[in-house]
């Protein structure tokens, strides 16, 4: 056993670090440093920068235009990104639909979609949850009926993150009513510009417009946009969940946040707060090493599966605790609030500069223990798969 990184890995880390120093778009960096929210074009600029550095396919195999990096390299890469205050890479194209397409799609689909995903020419969103199907995802009702060379899609998807920016949506749709509800589900790619699609904003408790409901009314979808086989969508969805394990714990961003929390509150000399921060740091250290253990298992050819549920549960708990501590540190100054964008310049109220953004973040991050399979669902998975109860 050996805890240190190899010379090769350290050299890799240095390349990423200097690449970020030299080429990370300055206007995005500036907004990130100030804690300002990013526009659609900022996000596109950031992702195009990743592509230009040949980093976009950081978790893809070489044959599909990816980097072919080892788990340790991916870990180091994501750490460096967070340390340089990069925004989080949008997972919908690069970590979700991309791997499904290169694993289960046909050649024509790979040629058609993969380059645009890597280059971020298309913004993808995820059509899984429905108004009536949350944790019980397989109960979904959005229907796709084959009519000649098209599917006719009717139904609604909800909690769709950044659908207002999206060019495409990947959907789980019901193509057949079967006894076992998982068996009638298919995986369909839909152009957001198709007639019959309506995007309706949902404003979350922080006042932000991040998620939406997407309504489908007689939407005509070419049949060649079906991935794999009809009725196999559930299998692909499960594959996708397992593939999305890198960075699921959000450790690199948490480390940056804790450092910021310490920096912002150092002058308070608040023993109670400092004790909570110490306990948080310890939990974060343990989580980070748990992630490394998982990566080591993957590198050895293992499939962590249910173990990655630990990363989801612990990671989101820690993310939420960090957000709570910022709010606690800000005290009464969280009261003045004009939404997640903060205050108009020169109109800042009294109190620390992080007060308003931290309470927005706190409210927004209640989502983390709910999305991606709620933490309760993750516990069901561990109970069944690992404890055998």
């Amino acid at each position, binding site marked *: 056993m050996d805890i240190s990184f190899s010379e090769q890995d350290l050299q890799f880390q240095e390349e990423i670090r200097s690449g970020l120093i030299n080429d990370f778009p300055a206007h995005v960096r500036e907004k990130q440093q100030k804690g300002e929210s990013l526009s659609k074009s900022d996000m596109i600029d950031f992702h195009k920068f990743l592509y230009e550095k040949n980093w976009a396919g950081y978790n893809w195999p070489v044959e599909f235009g990816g980097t072919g990096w080892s788990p340790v390299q991916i870990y180091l890469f994501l750490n460096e990104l967070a340390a340089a205050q990069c925004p989080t890479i949008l997972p919908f194209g690069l970590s979700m639909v991309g791997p499904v397409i290169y694993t289960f799609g046909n050649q024509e689909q790979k040629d058609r979609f993969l380059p645009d995903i890597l280059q971020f020419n298309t913004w993808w969103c995820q059509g899984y949850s429905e108004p009536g199907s949350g944790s019980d995802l397989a109960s979904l009702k959005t229907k796709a009926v084959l009519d000649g060379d098209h599917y006719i899609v009717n139904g609604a998807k909800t909690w769709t993150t950044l659908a207002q920016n999206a060019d495409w949506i990947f959907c789980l749709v019901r193509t057949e009513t079967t006894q076992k509800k998982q068996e009638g589900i298919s995986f369909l790619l839909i152009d957001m510009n198709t007639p019959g699609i309506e995007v309706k904003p949902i404003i979350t408790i922080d006042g932000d417009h991040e998620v939406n409901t997407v309504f489908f009314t007689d939407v005509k979808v070419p049949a060649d946009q079906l991935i794999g086989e009809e009725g196999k969508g559930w299998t692909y969805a499960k594959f996708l969940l397992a593939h999305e394990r890198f960075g699921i714990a959000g450790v690199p961003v948490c480390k940056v946040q804790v450092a910021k929390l310490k920096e912002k509150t150092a002058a308070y000399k608040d023993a109670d707060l400092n004790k909570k921060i110490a306990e948080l740091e310890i939990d974060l250290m343990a989580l980070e090493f748990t992630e490394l253990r998982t990566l080591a298992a993957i590198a050895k050819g293992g499939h962590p599966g249910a173990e990655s549920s*630990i990363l989801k549960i612990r990671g989101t708990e820690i993310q939420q605790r960090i957000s709570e501590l910022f709010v606690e540190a800000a005290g009464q100054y969280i009261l003045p609030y004009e939404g997640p964008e903060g205050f108009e310049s020169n109109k800042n109220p009294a109190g620390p500069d992080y007060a308003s953004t931290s309470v927005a973040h706190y409210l927004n991050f209640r989502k983390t223990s709910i999305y991606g399979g709620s933490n309760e669902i993750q516990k069901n998975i561990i109970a069944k798969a690992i404890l055998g109860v």
Partner: protein
Amino acid sequence: MNLNYSDEQNMLRDQVLKFCETNYDFTDREKILDSDVGYSPENWKQFAELGWLAVPFSEDNGGFNFGPIELTVMFEEFGKSLVVEPYLSSVVMSGTILENSNYAAKQELLESIIAGEQHVSVAYAEANIGYNFLDCVTTLDGQGNELTLNGSKTIVLNATNSSQFIVLAKHADSLALVLINKDTSGLEIQNFKTLDGQTCGELTFENLSLTADAVIASGEEAIALFNQMIEVATLCISAEAVGAMTASYQKTVQYTKEREQFSQPISNFQVLQHRMVDMFIETEITKSLLIKATLQLDSNDSEATKTISALKVQVGKAGKFIGQQAVQLHGGMGVSNEMSIGHYLKRFTVIDSMFGNTQHHINKYSTL
């Protein structure tokens, strides 16, 4: 980075596991605890024959040149069966101090420990200094061959069975580690059973005369040896705790599958399932810090001290949670002394109290 145990380390784990499976079920353990000495001399003889007592020592001193990784592998297995043999006090604590010292007589002493011929305990705790062991009041006065020891030490592990003691004492504006025989005049020993069925003692020194050859180390060297010993010992009981956590959640899962209420196994109830998942997660999280601390200590990483404090905090919190929940999910049986599960709770409680408890290490972590 390589987080895989070597074949040799896996073999050692299997060997300890097999030994415990064969010799250490709950009734075997009960019999051992009922005996006067509080451990099994036959088991100890086997430990020696299997070479286990030589594990952490260098080849020069008759050992296998193994280190923290092998020790934690063994202790994790010990923890699963709540092994009570005094491996911690004789081999880890006394052994670590002697192994790393420049003490002239160390080889002979280590050989007798490795052969299982004698036990040696470290006397470090005192009545009024809490976990700040270096602030001790027990004092070694004089110099050369005219040394006098006065004071007292408490919670000396396995004192009943030890023929010699390594005592931490204040000496000439600094500290010293001295070796004393149990028969030395001026030494009084009072023995106690511990909460978890082992033994410990209180040592009182009244004008106990010593010569220069009793001094193992003094000054900075003594402090460094002592601190290093505490770190290795903390790591070992943490590994033991991880083993005990693993056994606790696994036994609880097994019990809830067998126990029927409302005409079904109680493991069907989601509230119990999620509780057991929490126990499992805490175990894995603790194991992560254990491995990190072990590897850092193994590579003399300067961050090891901080990670060991983090580990001890996690061990304290997780041990308490898992121990309590294991009892809770066993229902009334959980509080019965006849069931093994409550004995894990006792061990977690003891482990948290040793070498700095959760609160102590949160504070220490903050200052590092």
